[in-house]
């Protein structure tokens, strides 16, 4: 008479997948420790009646074999090669970190320069307007197009403050985008 030692199978709500059997450890130990010896008769008999342990034996033995074969064939780079590449990358990372503040600074410098240019353009606009108002030739040329005095009044009344506000907006936007770009990079 064969003595059978079936494992206690605990049925959990999901009956298809959630079976736990207390013989699983024995099956696993066999797969890992003595994969080339046949299963003991009691364990073999248990597999006949326990689907969970059958799955374990099937999946476990397939993966053990696959792993052993792959491990026997794998070629990895030498430790020296990996170390050398790691050193190279560390140097590149360090260089990238060192240049990051420069990138931020150049972004801010560009924003400042553009702001300065916009201010100069604003100041020049005043000067150009004054100069143009003193030119009789310009008056003579533009008078038939816009009516007398209209163009200079328009310029001095609206355009210069609009230019200044535009310049201020541009500087703010540029500074914000420079800061954003620097933050993203980091």
């Amino acid at each position, binding site marked *: 008479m064969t003595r059978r030692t079936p494992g206690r199978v605990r049925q959990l709500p999901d009956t298809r*997948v959630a079976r736990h059997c207390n013989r699983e450890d024995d099956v696993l130990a066999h797969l890992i420790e003595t994969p080339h010896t046949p299963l003991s008769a009691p364990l073999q008999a248990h597999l006949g009646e326990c689907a*969970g342990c059958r799955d374990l034996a099937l999946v*476990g033995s*397939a993966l053990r074999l696959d792993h052993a074969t792959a491990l026997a064939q*794998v070629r*990895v780079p030498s*430790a020296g090669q*990996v170390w050398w590449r790691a050193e190279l990358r560390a140097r590149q990372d360090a260089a990238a970190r060192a240049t990051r503040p420069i990138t931020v600074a150049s972004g801010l410098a560009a924003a400042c320069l553009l702001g300065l240019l916009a201010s100069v353009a604003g100041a020049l606009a005043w000067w150009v307007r004054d100069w143009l108002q003193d030119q009789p030739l310009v008056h003579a040329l533009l008078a038939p197009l816009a009516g007398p005095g209209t163009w200079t009044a328009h310029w001095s009344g609206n355009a210069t403050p609009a230019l200044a506000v535009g310049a201020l907006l541009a500087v703010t936007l540029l500074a914000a985008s420079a800061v954003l770009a620097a933050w993203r990079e980091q």
Partner: protein
Amino acid sequence: MTIARTALVATAPSADGTFVMREDEFRLLYDRTSRPLWVYLWRLTRDAHAADDLLQDTYYRFLRTPGRYESERHERNALYRIATTLVRDGLRRGHPVSEALPEDGAGGLAGASDAVHATADRTDVQRALARLRPRDRELLWLAYAEGSSHVEIAASLGLRTGSIKMLLSRARRRMADLLQRRVASPGEPGS
């Protein structure tokens, strides 16, 4: 019962402080871990070139990350954790590692002959693994191919130890289904 093995893995930073260990210490770690780690990466990505790159990246990140390891197993778990995260990041960025299924003899090991992959059994395993969800692949590989304990699997995958048994059971069921379906399907060429 548990023997405290604190500072068993005693390493000193490299001379310039760039890495957390010296080159001679790294060589020992690498010789111990690189081959199974490469196979793990290859099985998760099914791409030998990706496995090469990820192996390099894994060790680089490990070398740059300060950590205290109580044992070589802890050190190994940390490496697998980094490797798993890198593979998952690759997946999130859209590297289609689970789209193309391996054909017979395809997706082989770097430098290995085609004959290695010719056996129907191994192809079945590859196909079944390819059809699994990434986490199921990770779990099954660590548990059965590598023989890791539930604690080690949890540490390597960033999961709770208590959840491993259930997750493994489900993953195993799915893979067994895939393997059995493959065996049961008649007239498969090459099988």
